[in-house]
């Protein structure tokens, strides 16, 4: 009997229509746990390093993790892996919602897609019965609309459906896979769905998931429940509201957006608008936000309210979460929450990432204003009007063109980095906020922060929100505040680290960029990343673990929880080893695709005050700490420690590891 996992994957060859239910090797859980960990292993084993994102061989995996479908609170992520058309690296966007649990109740840990379908299809997984069904009637339909149409067509109100919209159909590089209130958004999973002509995947399951030691597991959850209740009633003081609680950012709950609107950049990550949140806005935006929110909602088995059902005026209903609430209005310089709600609805049905897409549109606006995009790029096309001149109309026109890959949208749909190079004529200079070809959070700050430098530069997710979390974002001004914060902080891997926080000052010698010291930074960043990696293998929401301060899940209770679910005999060291194995395999896989130190750079203007020598030393020290050579490639010694000798051999053959680099 298998515990925690189902022990079966679904392998679907879209070219031939062959569907197989394949029993997995139980050893895989021991070595790579599940979720992202086992998916990375499958990509390494099966997909040649030179496969291009739109090649037939670019396998796409939709995966659950070892804790989905169990009573583990907030274990509801679904991780989608594929070679990204935007970064050309192995991407792993994740969505919350209900899909992964349903997939496991249907009897599968992963759905693995091979090759491409000759015509539009959707997949219907109903326990043991799996069908590839015609989706020609769904082409052109919205991502959310499609989900309900499929449920109605199948007469299966409880089916969970992940679908793409028009943007995915047109292989936009920032196309998302939408599912209820959630989406796997970053790096173009929707484009790979579209390339394979998968309009949607629907799943319904009514089978059991087994727990190895249910009593012990439920005891852990009971303790966690008490802690969740405590944290929900005791927000952390002296930090900004959005960081005070647990869960993903409670953007649907909080209406005071002074911090976001005045500290994040508007436009193409360009302007910080101090004083924006004035009295008028403070009345208008919260009122409009609340007017749109019909109900606060959660993902599977999570007590939080990170999402909302949005029913705003005459706009068709949709569901929203997180920062998408603000990204379109801020990118468009439109001081209207009304515009934000309306645009987000359109973008959700198109199925685009609400972080990167608004930045592409804002980038295009800057090119228009700079005269790089001209009238010929903005004229009417066979089926669309000319670009309006007002801010709102222009932004929505650009969104339409990108989602349909029409006119200038054909180029913009490749993302800022690639579009800038195709457009040329100086457009490259407007690409100032990407790392590894991916649009970053629109944030520009003062002094280089060494913790954030490492996180921005080195994480395989290429997105800061997927590595930061457990360490406070800034030093507390007073010793009293610091002492209060460290007093109750059992999540830390080592109590001695509390001293680091106590000594950390907002200014002076014990402040950034000098403190935390390079050595401390290595430990802190490695710890935060490791937690994200555990979450991603278990498919636990980072909002209840690695992404927030003092979370319910941490390195001290995770081994007990996973052991009780799966029967693995884990302690902290063995759990760390497993996720380090997967993390290094992921890095090696990306190294094999050409990624190295040259790519690991935060945007040049991310901080006003840079410290090149410290930055170089920081990177070198972190690479050494991680067991990587100075090109950012895991050393043979490190790989052997992690039982990845076969990876070292491969990297040696390719000349990525050379003699003497251990």
């Amino acid at each position, binding site marked *: 009997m298998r515990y925690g996992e189902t022990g079966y994957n679904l392998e679907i060859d879209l070219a031939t229509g062959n569907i197989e239910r394949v029993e997995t090797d139980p050893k895989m859980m021991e070595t790579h746990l599940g979720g992202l960990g086992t998916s990375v292993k499958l990509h390494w084993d099966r997909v040649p390093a030179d496969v291009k994102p739109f090649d037939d061989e670019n396998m796409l995996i939709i995966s659950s993790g070892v804790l989905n*479908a169990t*009573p583990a609170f907030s274990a509801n992520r679904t991780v989608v892996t594929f070679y990204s058309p935007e970064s050309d690296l192995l991407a792993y966007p994740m969505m919350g919602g209900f899909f992964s649990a349903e997939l496991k109740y249907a009897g599968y840990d992963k759905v693995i897609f091979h090759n491409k379908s000759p015509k539009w299809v959707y997949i219907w997984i109903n326990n043991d019965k799996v069908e590839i069904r015609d989706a020609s009637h769904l082409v052109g339909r919205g991502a959310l609309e499609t989900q309900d149409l499929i449920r109605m067509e199948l007469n299966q109100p409880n089916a969970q459906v992940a679908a793409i919209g028009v943007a995915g159909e047109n292989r936009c590089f920032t196309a998302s896979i939408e599912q209820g209130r959630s989406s796997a958004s970053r790096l173009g999973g929707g484009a790979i769905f579209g390339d394979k002509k998968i309009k949607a995947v629907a799943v319904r399951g009514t089978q059991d998931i087994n727990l190895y030691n*249910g009593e012990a597991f439920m005891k852990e959850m009971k303790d966690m429940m008490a802690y969740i209740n405590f944290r929900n009633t005791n927000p952390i003081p002296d930090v900004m509201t959005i960081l005070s609680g647990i869960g993903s950012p409670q953007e649907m709950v909080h209406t005071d957006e002074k911090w976001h609107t005045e500290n994040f950049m508007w436009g193409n990550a360009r302007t910080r608008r101090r004083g924006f949140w004035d009295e008028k806005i403070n009345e208008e935006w919260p009122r409009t936000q609340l007017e749109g929110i019909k109900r606060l909602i959660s993902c599977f088995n999570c007590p939080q309210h990170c999402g909302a059902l949005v029913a705003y005026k005459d706009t068709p209903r949709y569901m929203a979460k997180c920062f998408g609430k603000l990204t379109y209005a801020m990118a468009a310089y439109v001081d209207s929450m009304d515009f934000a709600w309306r645009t987000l609805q359109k973008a959700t049905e198109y199925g685009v990432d609400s972080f990167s897409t608004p930045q592409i549109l804002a980038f295009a606006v800057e090119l228009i204003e700079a005269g790089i995009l001209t009238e010929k790029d903005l004229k009417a096309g066979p089926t669309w009007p000319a670009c309006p001149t007002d801010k709102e109309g222009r932004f929505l026109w650009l969104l339409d063109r990108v989602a349909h890959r029409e006119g200038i949208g054909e180029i913009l749909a490749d993302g800022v980095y690639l579009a800038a190079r195709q457009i040329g004529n100086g457009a490259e200079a407007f690409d100032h906020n990407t790392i590894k070809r991916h649009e970053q959070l629109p944030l520009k700050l003062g002094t280089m922060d060494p913790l954030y430098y490492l996180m921005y530069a080195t994480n395989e997710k290429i997105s800061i929100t997927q590595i930061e979390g457990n360490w406070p974002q800034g030093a507390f001004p007073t010793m009293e505040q610091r002492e209060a914060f460290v007093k109750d902080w059992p999540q830390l891997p080592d109590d001695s680290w509390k001293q680091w926080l106590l000594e950390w000052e907002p200014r002076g010698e014990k402040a950034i960029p000098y403190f935390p010291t390079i050595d401390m930074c290595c430990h802190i960043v490695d710890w935060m990343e490791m937690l994200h990696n555990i979450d991603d293998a278990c498919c636990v929401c980072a909002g209840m673990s690695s992404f927030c301060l003092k979370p319910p899940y941490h390195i001290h209770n995770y081994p007990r929880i996973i052991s009780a679910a799966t029967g693995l005999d884990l302690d902290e060291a063995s759990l760390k080893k497993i996720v380090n194995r997967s993390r290094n395999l992921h890095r090696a896989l990306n190294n094999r695709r050409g990624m190295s130190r040259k790519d690991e750079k935060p945007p040049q203007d991310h901080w006003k005050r840079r410290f090149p020598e410290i930055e170089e030393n920081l990177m070198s020290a972190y690479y050494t700490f991680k067991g990587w050579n100075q090109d950012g490639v895991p050393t043979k010694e490190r790989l052997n420690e992690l039982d990845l000798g076969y990876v070292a051999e491969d990297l040696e053959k390719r000349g990525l590891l050379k003699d003497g680099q251990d």
Partner: protein
Amino acid sequence: MAKIKKKIKTIKVDADKCNGCRGCEIVCSAFHSTPRYSTINPARSRIQIIRHPLKDVWLPIFAGEYTPAECMGREKYVIDGKEYDECTFCRATCPSRDIFKEPDSGLPLKCDMCEDEPPLEQPKCVEWCLNDVLVYEEREEEVEESVEMEKVETGLVSMIDKYGLDKVAEAIARISQKD
């Protein structure tokens, strides 16, 4: 007939607070698995969240009595502008729909308020709902003594409905002979 004191157990449902997480379904199925907490399967849960997210419908419904036949007609409610599907509020395990049936055997499920020895303070779904959607209340009422249909009897009736009296009787006779 003699009067006796009967404990009335009520779960008050404040559906407007439901965030749709389905934690109640999970813990219900875990609690009722054998050995306890060994398996999870919301399809076996005695509480189901009727969900239509875009219609703003998140409605916890508890499994009630088994019925061998459908009602003569069906009801459909519209409340506060929200139209609920046919029979949404009905708790019965009924041939007209799939909910509240064991997914393997089709046998009926019924909420037992998590009766246990020693008794729990409250049913598991209530304990697990962190949004106060479900609130447990107890009170005593004086009622006339009557014989309530036992669980075994309920199961037998549904087996008879499914396979016919003769087959069930034959099976029981056969099992008796083996003993």
